[in-house]
């Protein structure tokens, strides 16, 4: 009888301990599709952006994407993460003219800054959206490009990358938490990175604060705004009008950088002669952090950029009409004070809160 009581006691202990253990083991890694609370800017002009039905933002997915973004495990020799060339302090651009790859290879284009990306899906309907040359039509596909590019992370196969993640102590659990299964795939990798990138929203510049009536614009900024948004500077045709807070038209243009464009740009993707030398219009936000400028990083300072548009643009068969229309007048003919005003307007688009670790 005693022995039996003991057995029953042990039995209950067994039940109790198993009850206690089971829910705890791996609980923090259980699949959790809790939606990510995306806070969109509330200035006038900002809109929501489409999120792909097959890749909704979740807390676990964004967190996984962020961890992957900063992890050198993605490069062939475990030396380089996305953040190596997309540094927070540079508004996720690279301060190098050309980014240096995992093995020290020198690339041929400047790394683009990363913010407010997903509006591209809404406003660019061409299917050529990301990269300087429009080579990716969604952020998921874009994310795989640098991982395989021989001058960037230099993996020869996505299988290698997936295997490294699969063999990692924690990643399989994090993939389970985000996507419901331990199995790592390149698709889930791309989805996680894209989720994180969609959360990179920069909307707290002095310009935004002025839009929200939280500060007054300086007179010089106002003068610069006028130059920007009128035929005088004619920046707005490509960089968006003032009622659009993105400062890009999400399109592609040949801005007259070279008489014989060395980089074929959008042409590489479309094969259409009229696209030769066209590059993606970058946003004008956060310019103080994103230099050097242009796809080839040729200009070190914003004044060099302004002077280029003022007097340095060159003709070529595909040059944008908004650029070539100033040729007969020998350029824009901005006066030195006008250039300063334009600069001050551009500087008002800096969002210093975006370039610090959160």
């Amino acid at each position: 009888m005693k022995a039996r009581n003991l057995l029953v006691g042990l039995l209950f202990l067994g039940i109790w301990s198993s009850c206690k253990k089971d829910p705890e083991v791996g609980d923090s890694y259980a699949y959790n599709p809790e939606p990510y609370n995306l806070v969109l800017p509330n200035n006038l002009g900002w809109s929501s952006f489409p999120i792909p039905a097959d890749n909704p933002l979740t807390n676990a997915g964004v967190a996984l994407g962020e961890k992957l973004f900063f992890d050198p495990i993605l490069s062939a020799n475990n030396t380089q993460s996305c953040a190596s060339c997309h540094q927070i302090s540079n508004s996720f651009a690279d301060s190098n003219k050309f980014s240096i790859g995992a093995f020290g290879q020198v690339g041929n284009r400047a790394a683009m800054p990363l913010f407010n990306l997903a509006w591209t899906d809404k406003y660019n309907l061409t299917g050529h959206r990301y990269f300087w040359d429009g080579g990716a039509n969604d952020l998921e596909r874009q994310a795989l490009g640098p991982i395989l590019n021989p001058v960037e992370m230099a993996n020869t196969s996505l299988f290698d990358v997936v295997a490294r993640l699969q063999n990692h102590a924690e990643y399989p659990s994090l993939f389970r938490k985000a996507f419901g299964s331990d199995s790592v795939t390149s698709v889930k990798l791309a989805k996680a990175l894209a989720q994180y990138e969609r959360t990179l929203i920069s909307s707290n510049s002095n310009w935004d604060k002025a839009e929200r009536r939280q500060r007054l614009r300086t007179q010089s900024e106002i003068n610069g705004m006028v130059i920007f948004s009128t035929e005088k500077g004619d920046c707005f045709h490509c960089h968006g009008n003032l009622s659009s807070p993105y400062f890009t038209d999400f399109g592609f243009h040949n801005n007259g950088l070279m008489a014989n464009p060395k980089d074929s740009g959008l042409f590489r993707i479309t094969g259409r002669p009229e696209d030769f030398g066209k590059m993606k219009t970058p946003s004008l936000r956060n310019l103080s952090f994103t230099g050097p400028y242009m796809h080839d990083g040729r200009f070190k300072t914003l004044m060099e950029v302004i002077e280029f548009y003022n007097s340095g643009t060159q003709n070529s068969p595909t040059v944008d009409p908004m650029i070539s229309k100033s040729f007969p007048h020998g350029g824009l003919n901005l006066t030195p004070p006008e250039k300063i005003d334009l600069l001050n307007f551009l500087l008002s688009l800096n969002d210093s809160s975006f370039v610090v670790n959160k």
Partner: protein
Amino acid sequence: MVNIIFFLMNKMDFLSLAQTKLKNLIFLVAILPLILVGCKDDPTPTPTEPGINSLDTLTNFTGLVVPKTGSITFSMDYQFAGVPIIFESKNYVNAAKDTFTINALKHYLSNITLTKSNGSKLNLGTYHLLNPQAPGSTIFTIDNVPAGHYTGMQIALGIDSTRNYGGLQEGALDPSWGMFWTWNTGYIFFRINGNASAGKSFSYDLGGSEHLVRVNMDLTTYKVKSVNPRLGMLMDVNELFQNPENISFEKDGYTIHSNSDGPIVKVSANMLDMVSVKFLEN
């Protein structure tokens, strides 16, 4: 019951396992009548649908009759001018007199669409990546093919635009297979490369939805009735370089990709007669 539990307890380390055993036992006892009933009912229900009956009795037909829901096993053989391909070592000569080896050949095959005798189309909707150097990949079975009388077939040597430009996908369309442009949008539909003469190599990565090749094949030269037929196809790689227009490395390029307008249009037109039905049998 308690005795049974304690009996099992002696054998097992965990109560949960014992409970599982017990549950299994109860479950088995509970479903036994169902299994028996199921066995008894099974043979009767199928041939009541009118359409299936007529397919079963159909004798005067050409093409393929699948009398009830079945499976078709598709396969592809690869030749160059009628001779099986030997990769890497053998030299081939095309109509433009280019000499070359074939080092790699991989392609997508999708949108297998069967034409019914009444003209309607049935897209089987699957995606396959075929690589003759990985022989298991060149034979595949599609299940749940609806009953029907089929007289023709179309395949796409590539991916339809929905999947080509849509979000990333797993399976045969997983970007890891390397048939995916990470610098351009979409999949590489068809890859062939090798060594050309004078130390040069050639590399054709064909793609782009506007260049998607859809090959039509007639099945009416066959007469097969089967629920699991086998349909063998034959790809003659020589046809990529000729008919209607010769492709020459010097003239059309040692590399052809989706964005090179002229040559890929010519190649795509040549590919229309690249695949034929080799056999259709029970």
